């Protein structure tokens, strides 16, 4: 049987893990956006005398097939991944939460119809919809953000609606209604603040999901493909470059791949810790 003390110790252990995750995310975020100032190399600076070099002091992650510094490229990639991850999560948050609030609060036939629609989207494989939508919205970061956001919002809609349905039954909401508070006020002041926890957890988990989807799409060649964008190359595309040279030069796929896995892992640990913190039942 787990005693209170070991439970407490477990919790603190995971807290430390989540803390490490949060620190890692901050480092990736900051260095990704500061890379034009901190890297001595440009993202597209070619060096013909130094192709496919292994890791060294001047190039900590080595160089790629065109002699570009891999660390610099990975950091530019961090900017792409973070933009896609956080941007997608925010788009989905705005659409999904609004949808869920309306659906849960209105109830009845409107709710039935709105949720039927969500169920259809929710059941389909994400990647299938991403790929179909990316055909329509093109292969820029903006297009991918819209495509990913249009898939991810259903998660927020479902969570929000479920929470609203629960919160509607709370005594203080009934009290506010009895005192004649207008519906908008009940929704915004009494229900929304109380359901922020689960929405925050969903937000934390949808960032790594978007990063995963984006890098996978870019790896199979259906993601961001905008060679003239100075914004950076996706980690998925970097991994694809390394994949072709894996037999002889494994370091080129290793570093972008490690960046993807560690970032997703960091977000997931933070998400788990947040969920445990906000919902003591799952601890």
């Amino acid at each position: 049987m787990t005693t209170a003390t070991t439970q407490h110790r477990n919790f603190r252990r995971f807290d430390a893990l989540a803390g490490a995750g949060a620190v890692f995310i901050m480092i990736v975020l900051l260095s990704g956006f500061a890379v034009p100032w901190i890297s001595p190399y440009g993202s597209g600076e070619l060096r013909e005398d130094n192709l496919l070099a292994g890791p060294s002091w001047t190039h900590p992650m080595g160089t790629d097939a065109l002699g570009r510094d891999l660390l610099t490229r990975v950091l530019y990639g961090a900017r792409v991944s973070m933009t896609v991850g956080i941007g997608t999560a925010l788009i989905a948050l705005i659409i999904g939460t609004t949808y869920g609030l309306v659906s849960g609060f209105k109830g009845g036939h409107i709710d039935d119809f709105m949720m039927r629609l969500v169920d259809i989207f929710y059941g389909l494989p994400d990647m299938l919809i991403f790929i179909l939508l990316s055909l329509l919205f093109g292969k820029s970061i903006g297009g991918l953000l819209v495509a990913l956001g249009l898939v991810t919002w259903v998660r927020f809609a479902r969570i929000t609606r479920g929470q609203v349905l629960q919160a509607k039954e709370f005594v203080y909401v009934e009290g506010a209604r009895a005192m004649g508070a207008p519906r908008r006020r009940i929704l915004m002041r009494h229900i929304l603040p109380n359901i922020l926890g689960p929405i925050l957890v969903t937000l934390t988990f949808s960032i790594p999901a978007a990063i995963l989807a984006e890098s996978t799409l870019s790896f199979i060649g259906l993601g961001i493909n905008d060679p003239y964008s100075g914004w950076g190359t996706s980690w998925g595309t970097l991994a694809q470059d390394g994949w072709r040279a894996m037999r002889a030069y494994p370091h080129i796929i290793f570093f972008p791949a490690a960046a993807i896995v560690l970032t997703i892992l960091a977000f997931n640990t933070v998400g788990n810790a947040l969920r445990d913190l906000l919902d003591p039942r799952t601890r």
Partner: protein
Amino acid sequence: MAPFLLKRIFHGVAVLWVVATLTFVLLRLTPGGPFDRERKLPPQVVANLEAKYHLDESFFKQYLRYLTGVVRGDLGPSYKYLDRGVNDIVRDTLPTSALLGALAIAFALAVSIPAGLFAAYCRGSWIDRWLMISASIGISMPHFILGAVLIWALALQLNWFHAARWDALSSAVLPTITLGAAPAAYLSALLRSSLIETLGEDFIRTARAKGITEAGVLFKHAFSQSLIPMLTVMGPLTATLLTGSFVVEYVFAIPGMGRFFITAVTDRDYPLIMGVTLIYTALLVSANLIVDLLYGIVDPRIRSQ
């Protein structure tokens, strides 16, 4: 049972219709046509091609033609593979993808059931903690990276397997692990938490009071209760497997439906994109239907409803 089944089948057909319609509209809205080439084709050639594939008809007429075709079981011609229709391509590639998916589910269950039971049995110990840490790494690992790691270590370094071949049973080992790892990790974490939750119930206390060993309580009494949450995620898990199969088939060069889907998107082979999308949806709808039917078998309370 029969009305329930009919209702679910009707619902499934409705989902298929919605997906078919949305995909059809989406592909027609997509900028650029299927016959755009780097070098522009002569207008007469384009006109002939469009007439051949009925692209010169009105939007609504094309839509009706496509739907009647689908109802008759004809998914249309492929723009890219001139000698093969979409039906032929699906017939050739679906068994490969289905085999890979079935192997991955078998792998996931074979790993997650012992791992989940074991983690729940020694909950709080270092074994439990390490199992759960590996589970969260497994969930965070993209298919293409796991595939690359396995190929690099087991095929290129140790030479135990071939990097990309699809001819013998041994060539299915690495793709199966790659596709099944995330579901295995997810299912073990789910099984563990559901087992631990069940262990707090009254009937478990009764079982313990009767003197049944901890392992007996876990296997006999708690495990059967955990089958429902396991079943619940099987539907979404099928969706994850389908998604994963695109990437795994790409990485391991397996001639399955997912790889054809990716090339169809690059080639703008609209009927092939539509056809594969519909097949995927149909697979998903049937998987959910099977899960619903299994609920009734696992839990008699649901059957009577």
